[in-house]
């Protein structure tokens, strides 16, 4: 597989592509299986805006409309296009960032050869992912014995693949012109999301409906290919656009100076060089940032923290007011959901505002946001410095390993607190604006417990990283514990004989005491705090006794 740049690019990426597409196909099967037994007509009473936003297609109707709509039309399209963007952004700019493009071009290959090989690999991988989705989409109804006649999975897959290639080429072109991988993936992702929003929301306003037609996402989903088959004009626009972007990339990569391996220039760096803001930015970015190990560790992953805290804030804010927009049929239908489905969305009574918040926000969204940041931070606390080989020079200073460990654990707490505060402020404003009547004290209790849960899961990553010096197993362990404890808490109670075991799940300590409706369960809070303290205490001897990697 190392015969050429093309095959090496395939080798590096095919697993991710197949896993991504297969997960979406599996999700389709699950969704179909769950919805097969229930009356889904309440979905179609949701406002058109909500249906559009989640990709559900009223034209198809019934089970197929929900399953193919929400899973393929939205999630599948975003995943396959997201992977294409990631590959496209890495194709030129990624090799520049890693400093490997120079040595690659030391071989008898032109820049055009490299670009063509990378683009070819991106297209082939996208075709592969699309084929997996197509096969999954054809197989799912057969396996489940569901009637999906009238759904044109092939047409949907073709549109979806062309759409993904288009966005992958946007990232390639930006990367080819700038050599900046972050700009390439960020720019393309932002353009894609903007395009998706334009394509789904603008048609709601008659005056702006025409504008939606120039959004590339509209060329993918605007003609509802799953119902109407391939729209040749739209497909031609997507493919033609991709070709034009390819030419743009070709011009870009050939005309500019290539960059060597470079440090990132952040927004704060720009403020530090501007005479007006220099003094203040210097305090934040410079002297304060390096004042201690905790301060430095707190600033190391500020990008991730700001993004996730922002998302948590927005979502927490959003779910309050949206509760009032739900049609009565929606909550009534939820009451008739099977137990398994209720377990999946967090066992909440959705007929109350507190239950709605728990099901939509607290049971999954908040823990996912917390784990995303805290498992990553926890894993990289010690193992990250070892992998970057900076631990050696850090420990050349008169600080004990224990001191480094505790300072890093302190930073983990700071990350958790920032996420908790962002969530609390968002959900409080949302609840007050929406007039949901959930007491602020309960919101505080639930957010605090969610923060402590995230901290405990971050501590799992922290202890594995401390013991092994490797961040990948640390992240896997924390994610595994999170998923297991979620399922233990949500599904074990369905079986009377196993229900008692759910009490051992940290998720049960988080939501089992019903903090949104009842009062603060202090015992559960103590258990979550104890979990973190014990894990950090266990990490100390594990980290102190072993050979450090270098």
């Amino acid at each position, binding site marked *: 597989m190392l015969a050429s740049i093309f095959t090496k690019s395939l080798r590096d990426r095919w697993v991710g592509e197949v896993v991504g597409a297969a997960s979406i196909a599996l999700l389709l099967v699950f969704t179909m299986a769950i919805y097969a037994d229930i009356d889904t007509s309440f979905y179609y009473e949701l406002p058109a805006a909500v249906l559009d936003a989640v990709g559900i297609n009223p034209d198809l109707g019934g089970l197929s409309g929900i399953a193919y709509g929400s899973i393929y039309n939205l999630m599948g399209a975003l995943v396959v296009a997201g992977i294409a963007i990631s590959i496209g952004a890495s194709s030129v700019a990624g090799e520049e960032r890693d400093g490997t493009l120079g040595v690659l071009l030391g071989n008898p290959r032109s820049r055009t050869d490299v670009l063509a090989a990378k683009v070819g690999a991106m297209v082939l991988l996208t075709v592969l992912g699309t084929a997996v989705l197509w096969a999954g989409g054809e197989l799912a109804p057969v396996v489940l014995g569901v009637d999906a006649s009238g759904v044109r999975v092939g047409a949907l897959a073709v549109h979806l693949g062309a759409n993904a290639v288009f966005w992958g080429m946007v990232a390639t072109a930006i990367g080819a012109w700038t050599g900046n991988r972050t700009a390439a993936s960020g720019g393309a992702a932002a353009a894609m999301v903007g395009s998706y929003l334009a394509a789904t929301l603008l048609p709601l306003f008659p005056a702006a409906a025409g504008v939606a037609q120039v959004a590339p996402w509209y060329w993918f989903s605007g003609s509802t290919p799953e119902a109407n088959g391939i729209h040749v004009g739209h497909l031609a626009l997507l493919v033609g656009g991709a070709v034009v972007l390819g030419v743009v990339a070709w011009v870009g990569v050939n005309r500019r100076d290539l960059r060597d*391996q*470079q*440090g*990132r220039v*952040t927004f704060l*760096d720009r403020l530090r060089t501007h005479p007006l803001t220099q003094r203040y930015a210097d305090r934040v970015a*410079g*002297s304060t*940032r*390096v*004042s*201690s*190990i905790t301060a*430095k560790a707190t600033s190391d992953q500020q990008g991730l923290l700001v993004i996730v805290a922002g998302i948590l804030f927005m979502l927490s804010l959003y779910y309050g007011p949206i509760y009032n927009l739900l049609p009565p049929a929606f909550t009534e239908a939820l009451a008739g959901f099977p137990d398994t489905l209720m377990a999946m969305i967090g066992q909440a009574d959705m007929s109350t505002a507190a239950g709605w918040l728990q099901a939509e926000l607290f049971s999954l969204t908040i823990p996912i946001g917390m784990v995303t940041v805290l498992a990553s931070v926890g894993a990289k606390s010690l193992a990250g410095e070892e992998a*970057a*080989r*900076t*631990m*050696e*020079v*850090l*420990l*050349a*200073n*008169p*600080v*004990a390993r224990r001191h480094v460990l505790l300072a890093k654990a302190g930073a983990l707490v700071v990350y958790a607190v920032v996420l908790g505060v962002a969530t609390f402020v968002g959900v409080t404003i949302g609840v007050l604006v929406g007039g949901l009547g959930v007491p602020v004290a309960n919101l505080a209790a639930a957010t605090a417990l969610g923060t402590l849960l995230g901290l405990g899961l971050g501590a799992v990553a922290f202890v594995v990283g401390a013991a092994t010096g490797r961040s990948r197993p640390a992240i896997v362990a924390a994610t595994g514990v999170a998923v297991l404890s979620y399922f233990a808490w949500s599904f074990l109670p369905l079986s009377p004989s196993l229900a008692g075991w759910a009490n051992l799940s940290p998720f049960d300590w988080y939501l089992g005491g019903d903090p949104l409706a009842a009062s603060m369960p202090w015992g559960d809070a103590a258990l979550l705090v104890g979990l973190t303290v014990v894990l950090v205490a266990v990490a100390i001897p594990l980290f102190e*006794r072993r*050979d*450090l990697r*270098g």
Partner: protein
Amino acid sequence: MTTTPDTPAIHTRGLTKHYDEVEALVDLDLEVRRGEVFGFLGPNGAGKTTTIRTLLDLIRPTSGTATILGLDTHADAVEIRRHIGYLPSDLSLYPTLTGRDTITYFANLRGGVEWSHVEELATRFGADLDRKVGELSSGNRQKVGLIQAFMNRPGLIIMDEPSNGLDPLVQQEFQDLMRETAATGAAVFLSSHTLSEVQRAADRVGIIRDGHLVDVEGVHDLRSKAIRRIELVFDAPVGGDEFAAVDGVRDVEVRDRSVLLNFDGHMEELLAAATGHHHLVDITSEEADLEEIFLAYYRDADRPDGAPGGARPDDARRGVGA
């Protein structure tokens, strides 16, 4: 501290490190005195970095003990680091920090350093402290590493391949700094695979190969037995036999009017042979590389149970080895 000026800067006894089946370091007995530059010389993979990482308590010995400035390397690790400077090989720093931020960070962890000294070091090395470390070339990054190693006026500086990427002018400045540091009574432990670097800076040299300390000797002794690759050019073709007969000559090769040979004897004997019956037109002499010296002098010295190597010219003078 239990330290007196006579306490060795580094003292190891039977220091051994195994990784699974691999013996990275075997029974290392080493003493580095204060006020000297000690060169630690060996080819890649000989165990130099393992020794240093063990001394710094980054990894733990399988057996044996070590002290730095009279303090135990494990029990007193933090106290030791107050008094030493360290420059790892193939230095990694935080790419998003500037050089100044990096130095500030480490200075804070040390409870402060003399900034005037930092500025002085930066000027000497010509280091740009305002750029991000990630944007620096390896040589310029190495300057930041050197500054942080010297900035606290340590009693012992441990450096692993410190000259990597430094240009000749900065290398000269660095050599001077090492000498000045040793003159103040501090010790410098300089690990390197480059014979010339060690020869220029060090007072004594320890030679390590395959995890065994093969020899410790004064740098002048090492230089005197350094093999030279010599090319003699004559005005007419000559035979090789008469040169092969000179003491210390080996690997003679005749190419038309020139003779190539490896030589570790007395130069005047070779010159006498070359100028006696022929017209010598040109002579070039260059240092053989380290591996050739190892092969010539220490071929079997690293075998703990093996007989002393026959290739070694003067076993009697060597205290360590078999």
